[in-house]
């Protein structure tokens, strides 16, 4: 009898035992750090001295800091431009490459490759191609008769150059996901459209677009979050410059934490980033649960 109850308790606890290792990691490195960061944002601390509680002072000084607003403007500029372009190009690519032919499959692999190459390599390759005096891009511009551009050294073009890198790296991933969405559209819809003598453009806007719109919405959200966390290209190519023109929220957070050791202020910046990612995440899960429902 005692043995049976023991076994019962054991089997009731087993699921928890099985998820415990993973849960410990999640709590230690995802949930607790977020709580700790919010806590730190109410203190003044330079990592070595004493922590001093200052209430909302970090937030008020952050919102009063004009540099913070430049950073916000940069963050949103980068986000909107890179997500807009990546979605646009991926859509065009997907429509062009969605049929399963040998050459299309090869091209799909080619455009996907940059996605699994490290940011260090990509950043250095582009740093080299953007080089103002000997770089490949300026050579091409010169060949077609346009005067050379100081890509990363000019406040007008530095951010756009970083957008180019992000778009180039991300197009393959997005294209492949859109392609799989297009291929899942039931073929009778296209056959019906053909019977109705619908032209290609009409079929695209009346059938393809509505059928892939859940995927597109999902991709927009994923890309928004990806663009918010972009750090490597900035750190390796511009260091936030020239004149703060490429400094985004993540880089600003890194700088205050690791160069200025203003832990409280950096944490307040982190909370702003967290709110932005949080809002996007909530929308993301709303969409995801709906998508699962439809399947």
């Amino acid at each position, binding site marked *: 009898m005692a043995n049976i109850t023991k076994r019962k308790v054991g089997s009731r606890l087993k699921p928890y035992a099985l998820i415990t290792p993973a849960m410990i990691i999640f709590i230690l490195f995802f949930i607790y750090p977020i709580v700790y960061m919010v806590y730190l944002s109410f203190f003044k601390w330079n990592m070595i001295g004493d922590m001093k509680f200052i209430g909302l002072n970090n937030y008020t000084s952050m919102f009063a800091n004009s540099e913070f607003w430049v950073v916000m403007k940069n963050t949103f500029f980068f986000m909107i431009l890179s997500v807009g372009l990546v979605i646009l190009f991926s859509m065009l690519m997907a429509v062009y490459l969605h049929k399963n032919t040998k050459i299309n499959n090869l*091209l799909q692999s080619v455009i996907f490759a940059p996605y699994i190459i490290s940011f260090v390599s990509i950043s250095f390759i582009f740093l080299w191609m953007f080089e103002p005096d000997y770089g490949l891009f300026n050579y091409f511009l010169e060949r077609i008769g346009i005067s050379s551009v100081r890509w990363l050294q000019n406040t007008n073009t530095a951010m756009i150059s970083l957008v180019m890198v992000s778009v180039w790296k991300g197009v393959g991933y997005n294209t492949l996901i859109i392609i799989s969405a297009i291929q899942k559209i039931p073929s009778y819809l296209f056959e019906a459209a053909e019977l109705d003598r619908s032209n290609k453009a009409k079929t695209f806007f009346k059938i393809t677009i509505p059928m892939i719109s859940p995927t597109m919405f999902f991709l927009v959200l994923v890309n928004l979050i990806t663009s918010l966390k972009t750090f490597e290209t900035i750190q390796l190519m511009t260091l936030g410059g020239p004149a703060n023109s490429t400094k985004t929220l993540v880089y600003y957070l890194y700088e205050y934490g690791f160069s200025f050791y203003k832990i409280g202020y950096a944490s307040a910046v982190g909370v702003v980033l967290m709110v932005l990612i949080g809002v996007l995440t909530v929308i993301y899960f709303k969409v995801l649960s709906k998508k699962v429902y439809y399947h």
Partner: protein
Amino acid sequence: MIKPIMKKTIKLLINMLIIVIFFVPFYWMILTAFKTLEETVQFPPSFWVSHPQWENFLVALKAIPFMKFTINSVVVSISVMLLQFLTVIPAAYAFARLKFKGKSLLFGTVLSTMMVPSQLVFLPIYLMFSKWGLINNYLSLILPFATSAFGIFMLRQSFMQVPEEILEAAKLDKASEFKTLTRIMLPAAKPTLVMLGLFSWISTWNDYFWPLVITTNDAVRTLPIGISSLRMVESGVTYHIVMAGNVLLIIPIIIVFLIAQKQIIRAFTYTGEK
């Protein structure tokens, strides 16, 4: 008659344009890695090298503790992968096959961590590790990635697809749950496990951000940090050396990509296709 030919030509031109846009940067990297310093600062640049400079690779290898960085990268990426298997498999099994209180809440928590990038939480985690005295220690590079929400999500999905009848049969045979897991579930989920391993290894191998924030000396630094420090060598950027180092960093990824292209693409686009 003319129309199909025109269409074919246009298609060919577009295909070539796509290849130029996505392939030329890599070609440029490889080409530069074989150039002399003089050739890299020559304008207009040359698109071929007549005397490939293999020494560039030796210079890159000697400029940084290359072997040390490679060993660190291998140790960290393999440890992360193994730990992920150890934590993900039991959790995915529990979420897929067992009933327990708070299951959906706990699973929701797991999923929500998928959205927390290391770029958001690095500062508090750095402070934690520094309090524990683990900065410049393999543990600080490995532990934060010892499990994977994405892995649990993906593996749970494939565990749920194992037909109920097979499991019932196993139960009738009085097979232990451990045996069911190792003899039935894991073999059935093999493609997913391969995908998971590839995803994990590639992500860790490529990671630059985490080793950058959590290490301060070369003893535990990984290859991407090492390659990025080539820029400082000999004061100023010597692109032929940087590109040689870059080639060495990319080679393992390209080899794995060529072998397991389909699985890698599936792994990386998994959440998007669901």
